[in-house]
């Protein structure tokens, strides 16, 4: 090498330029379009990949250094938490149910994100985005691992943590987040970047990781808050990648605008629907609340998303039309989702319950326009019935939206007492969606969404029983067989929190931790 060593080290801008430029080459044995077959079919036109600028300019050596340090800090906390029986410092064992949902519904998707970014990195012909996707792919793997490690400690003591991977591929409510990622992964690399890199990371993960994780801290879950913030520190990089990707596409060619706008509209709505689960976690499942879903939505979506769209307006991007419905929905979705899970509490791998009077007062103060008017009476009735020994469980199965796969539980935008149903026809068959947003997505790509694996349809078709099940035998109990197929431990993983094994164990162990007898 004939490079001169200079006294001054390279600044990060130069270091990053060396790392991401000039390392690439044009292929000669095969034409470039055969080496990168996914780069053009979506219609996005890129003229100069070198115009890509990664704002964080993190080079591989600093990446390993800081990530290693983050890991050491995180694992020190996890060890301390486990060694000191940290689980007994939780506010209330009800809290555990929020992180059961997290482990089964969210952590496995970090792994899918790892695969998706590895694929996107492979498929982009530009070296800048390829390096950024590589780092994000490694990050996502780290998130899956650290979340599973952190939450495995709870599996030693409590129900419902034992088989998240098996459950993700089968259970009715887990198909909601799973199908979101499957939808994104089965699109091309540019749409994937909008779906995950932009809508999910930039617009939505703040709502998942920031107030919810602060809530974990408030509820004494040191392990979760630490992995959550550790993951979110990577998300800060991912968000800038997602935003950069949008800007890059829009600056490269004016023909990209309508395609990008269509994807933004689609994925903003898809993301909003998935977040229904988080709304319910924040408003109902955290015994000690940091802020309501509505407040979190206003800060992280309306204020932050508003700023973002105002900024993108210079490229001609407009706020997705369907999001107008969100300012109505923010006052309802958490209550509607919790009411649904309460009724289907026999078929969920976590416990459900009705809020106490104090908690209902908190809900009325946070939702002055809706909670008392539409939900309090119903919830009080259910609670009274449960106290009399008539805990209500529904035994039927709900109709699912063909796109978001959420049960049809949402109400009409102008009438919170009427369930919203939309219907489309394709190839002589009827398909149902939960909203104008989902119907619009279906109608745009019906060939894709008619292939959805809808858990309720699959149960009715007899595809969700353990092998060798004979549904014709006398006294056949379909629900029990479905739960067996899901690997749920009937009576321990599901049903009401009141009277559960988690509740009894937590009380007994906490008693042992504070008394000598």
């Amino acid at each position, binding site marked *: 090498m004939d490079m001169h060593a200079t006294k001054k080290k390279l600044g*990060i801008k130069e270091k990053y330029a060396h790392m991401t430029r000039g390392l690439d080459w044009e292929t000669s044995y095969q034409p470039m379009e055969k080496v990168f077959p996914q780069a053009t079919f979506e219609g996005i036109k890129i003229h100069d990949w070198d115009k890509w600028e990664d704002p964080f300019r993190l080079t591989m050596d600093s990446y390993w250094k800081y990530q290693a340090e983050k890991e050491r800090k995180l694992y020190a906390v996890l060890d301390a938490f486990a060694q000191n029986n940290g689980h007994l410092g939780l506010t209330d064992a009800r809290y555990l149910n929020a992180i059961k949902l997290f482990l089964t519904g969210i952590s496995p998707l970090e792994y899918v994100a790892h695969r998706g970014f590895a694929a996107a990195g492979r498929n982009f012909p530009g070296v800048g985005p390829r390096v950024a996707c590589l780092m994000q792919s490694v990050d996502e793997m780290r998130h899956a691992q650290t979340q599973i490690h952190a939450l495995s400690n709870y599996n030693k003591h409590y129900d419902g943590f034992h088989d998240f991977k098996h459950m993700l591929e089968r259970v009715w409510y887990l198909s909601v987040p799973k199908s979101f990622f499957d939808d994104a992964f089965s699109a091309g690399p540019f749409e994937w970047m909008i779906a995950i890199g932009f809508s999910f990371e930039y617009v939505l993960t703040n709502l998942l990781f920031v107030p919810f*994780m602060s809530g974990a801290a408030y509820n004494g879950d040191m392990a979760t808050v630490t992995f959550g*913030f550790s993951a979110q520190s990577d998300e800060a990089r991912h968000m800038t990648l997602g935003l950069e990707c949008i800007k890059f596409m829009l600056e490269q060619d004016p023909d990209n605008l309508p395609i990008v706008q269509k994807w933004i509209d689609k994925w903003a709505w898809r993301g909003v629907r998935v977040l229904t689960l988080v709304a319910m976690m924040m408003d109902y499942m955290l015994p000690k609340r940091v802020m309501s879903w509505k407040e979190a939505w206003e800060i992280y979506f309306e204020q932050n998303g508003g700023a973002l769209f105002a900024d993108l307006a210079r490229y001609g991007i407009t706020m997705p039309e369907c999001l107008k419905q969100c300012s109505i929905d923010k006052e309802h979705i958490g209550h509607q989702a919790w009411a649904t899970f309460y009724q289907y509490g026999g078929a969920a791998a976590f416990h459900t319950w009705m809020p106490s009077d104090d908690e209902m007062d908190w809900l009325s103060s946070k939702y002055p326009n809706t909670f008392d008017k539409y939900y309090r009476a119903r919830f009080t009735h259910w609670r009274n019935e449960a106290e009399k020994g008539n805990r209500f469980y529904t035994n039927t199965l709900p109709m699912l939206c063909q796109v978001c796969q959420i049960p049809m539980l949402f109400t009409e935008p102008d009438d919170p007492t009427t369930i919203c149903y939309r219907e489309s026809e394709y190839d002589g068959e009827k398909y149902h969606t939960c909203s104008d947003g989902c119907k619009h997505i279906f109608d745009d790509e019906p060939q894709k969404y008619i292939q959805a694996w809808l858990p309720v349809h699959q149960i009715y078709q007899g595809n969700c029983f353990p092998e060798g099940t004979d549904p014709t035998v006398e006294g056949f109990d379909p629900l029990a067989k479905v739960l067996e197929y899901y690997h749920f431990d009937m009576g321990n993983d599901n049903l009401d929190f009141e009277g559960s094994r988690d509740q009894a164990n937590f009380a007994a162990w906490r008693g042992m931790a504070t008394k000598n007898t």
Partner: protein
Amino acid sequence: MSKVFIAFQCNEDTRPIVEAVLADNPHAEAIESPAMVKIDAEGSLVIKRESIEELIGRTFDLQELQMSLITLSGHLDEDDDQFKLSWLN
């Protein structure tokens, strides 16, 4: 004008960072939540390496922010001396 923000974990490493950011950005406001502090600022926010170094008494690499950063919003421009967030509208 829209707001940018940045949030850090609450710990001994971030205390001087937050102090420096608030001193360098008089228009910024810190909002504390359990385990985190979020700093909001109209239009833009700048984090200066020198101001942090002055408070901690050692050299500081702005990429160390990665260790305790939770989230941010706005376009980022980072070099060796400053880390700037802004909206262009």
